[in-house]
C-alpha cells in the first residue's frame, strides 16, 4: 500500500449560517467555511491507516470555486502529506456530476493510488452523491456507509452500517470507501503539527490544467429556490404561578388542538 487519496470539500459551516428574515434567503456570501465534517473523518481514517502500516502517502483533493488554502492547511496539520486544490471560477455552479468529474480527472492526473476515502455526505448540501459518482467515473469498487475499516494485504475489510444490519465486506484495492461519522473522532492538530504543515505543499490546478471539457461541467439540475423553511408555529407561552397551573393550562391547549387521546 503506497498511497491514499482523500477527497475534501470546503463546506459552509451550517451552524454559523445566517438567514435574512425578511426574504428567507441564506446569507452565504462571507459565510464561515471549514472542512466538511464527514470528510474530516475520512482524512482521520487515512492517517490512522498510515500510523498502523507506515510508509503511506496521504494526498487530499479539493474542488473549489474560491480559495480553500486556509481550510487545507488544517488537513495538512492533521497529517496529510500534500493537498491538491482544483480551483476555477467556472466551478461555481457545478453539481454533483460535475464535481465528481473534476475529482476523477484530478485523481487520474495524480496517478496510481490504492485507496480513495470520502465522507459519506457533505455538511452543507447533504446530497451524499459525489463519492458514488466518483467511483462510477473511475470504474472503482465502492463501499459506502462504512463505520470501520482494516487493511489486510491487498484488500480492505469494511463494516457497513445499514438500516437493519451490519454488513462486513471484503474489497480488493484499488477501491473507494465512503465513511460515516461514527468511524472515528478526528484529531485536533497541535501547534507543532500546524507549524510543520506550513512547509507542506498545496498544489493548485485549474480547469485548463486538467483539460476539462466545458460541457461536462454543465449542471444537470436547476435550483429553483433555496429558502429558510417557514415557521408557522403559534409560539404561545404558557405561564402560571405553579408547575401544576402551567401543566393544566398546557393540557387544556392540547385538548383543544385535538392531539390528546388515543
Amino acid at each position, binding site marked *: 500500500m503506497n498511497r491514499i487519496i482523500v477527497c475534501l470539500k470546503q463546506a*459552509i459551516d*451550517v*451552524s454559523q449560517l445566517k438567514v435574512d428574515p425578511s426574504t428567507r434567503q*441564506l446569507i452565504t456570501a462571507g459565510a464561515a467555511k471549514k472542512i466538511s465534517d464527514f470528510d474530516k473523518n475520512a482524512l482521520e481514517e487515512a492517517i490512522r491507516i498510515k500510523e498502523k502500516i507506515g510508509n503511506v502517502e496521504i494526498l487530499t483533493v479539493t474542488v473549489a470555486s474560491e480559495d480553500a488554502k486556509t481550510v487545507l492547511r488544517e488537513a495538512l496539520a492533521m497529517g496529510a502529506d500534500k493537498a491538491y486544490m482544483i480551483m476555477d471560477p467556472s466551478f461555481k455552479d457545478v453539481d454533483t*456530476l460535475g464535481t465528481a468529474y473534476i475529482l476523477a480527472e484530478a485523481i487520474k492526473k495524480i496517478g496510481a493510488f490504492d485507496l480513495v476515502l470520502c465522507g459519506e455526505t457533505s*455538511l*452543507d*448540501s*447533504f*446530497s*451524499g*452523491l459525489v*463519492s*458514488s*459518482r466518483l467511483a462510477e*467515473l473511475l470504474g472503482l*469498487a*465502492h*463501499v*459506502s456507509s462504512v463505520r470501520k475499516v482494516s487493511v489486510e494485504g491487498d484488500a480492505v*475489510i469494511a463494516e*457497513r452500517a*445499514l*438500516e437493519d444490519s*451490519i*454488513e*462486513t*465486506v*471484503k*474489497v*480488493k484495492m484499488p477501491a473507494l470507501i465512503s465513511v460515516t461519522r461514527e468511524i472515528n473522532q478526528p484529531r485536533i492538530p497541535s501547534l507543532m503539527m500546524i507549524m510543520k504543515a506550513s512547509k507542506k505543499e498545496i498544489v493548485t490546478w485549474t480547469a485548463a490544467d486538467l483539460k476539462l471539457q466545458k460541457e461536462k461541467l*454543465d449542471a*444537470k*439540475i*436547476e*435550483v*429553483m*429556490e*433555496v429558502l*429558510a*423553511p417557514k415557521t408557522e*408555529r*403559534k*409560539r*404561545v*407561552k*404558557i*405561564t402560571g404561578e405553579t*408547575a*401544576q397551573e*402551567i*401543566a*393544566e393550562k*398546557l*393540557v387544556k391547549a392540547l*385538548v383543544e*388542538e385535538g*392531539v*390528546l*387521546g388515543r
Partner: protein
Amino acid sequence: MKSMIMVYSEKHELTLEILGKGREIADKLRTELAAVLIGYNVQEKANELIKHGADKVFLVDNQALMHFQIEPYLSILHSLITNYKPETVLIGSTRNGKPLAARLATRLQTGCIPDCNRLSVDERNRLVCERITYGGNAVAKMTFKTKPQIATIPPRTFEKLHPQERSGQIIKFDAKIEEPKTEIIETKPLQVSAVRIEDADVIVSCGRGLEKKEDTALLEELAQILNGQVGNTRPLAEDRKWFTEWVGLSGHKVKPKLYIACGISGVIQHVAGIRDAKVIVAINKDENAPIFEVADYGVVGDLYQILPALKEALKKQLH
C-alpha cells in the same frame, strides 16, 4: 411508446410507498407507472406492486440476485432504463439505494436529486423536488435539466395506496448481470426496535437539559400515558452515548401529532427533523432557547418540575 415513471427500492415496503406518490404523478402526467422487482423467488410480490398502483412490473428473478449487491443491481436497472426509456426514475433512499441511484445517474450522465421529501408537477409539467439542505437551514426546490430524471425518496415520506384489485402487466426481463466487485463476508442483523419512532403519534423527547440517563424514566411515564414514544437529540447519543439513535436531520425525521421537546435547545439540525410535527411543545429553562421560536406552546421552566406536574394533569384529563 408511452412515457413512463419507473420505481425501484430494494426494500419492498418503500417501493409500495413510492408507488403511492408515483401513481399521483403518473395520472397527472398521463404516463405509465412501472415498478422494478429484483431478487430470487420474488414473483409473488409482483401482484402486490400492481395492487398498489403499478401498471407494469419488470421482474428480474435470479439466484445470483438473492442479496443486494450494487454492481449486479445497477447493471439490471441500467439496461431496463436504456431499453424502456422512462422519463422519471424514483429510487428508495436507503443506505444501498442512494449509491445505486447516484451511480445509475452517472452511468446515464444525468441529474439526481437525493432525499426528496416533496414531489410535485408544476404548470410546465416539470417534476419539482423539495429537499432539506444546509443542515436544516433551508429547503431547496429543484428540477431537472436532463432526462431521465432520477430522484431518491426516503422511507416513510409518502403513504402507500390502499391495495386494490386492478390489472397490470408482469414482464420478465432478462438482463446481462454484472459481477459484484465486493464480497459480503457477514451480515449481522441489528436489533431494530419493533416500534418505529416515525410511526409514533406522540413523541416525548429529551435534550441536554436532562441530567442523568435514568431520568428518561420521567419521559417514559409521560409517553406511556400518551401512548407515545421517547426520543432524544443527537448530543445525548453521540456525546453522552446514552442512546444509539436520535431525532434530527441526520437521524430520524418524525411527523407525530404531538412532539414534546424537554430540555432541548433547538439547534437547526434537530428542528429539521421535527418540522412535520402537527403540534410542538417546548419545555426549557432558558427563555432564549431557539426551540421556542419553532414551538406552538412554550413553557419556560425546569423540566424536573414541569414533567411530573404534566403527568398528573394528563392523568386527570385522560382517565
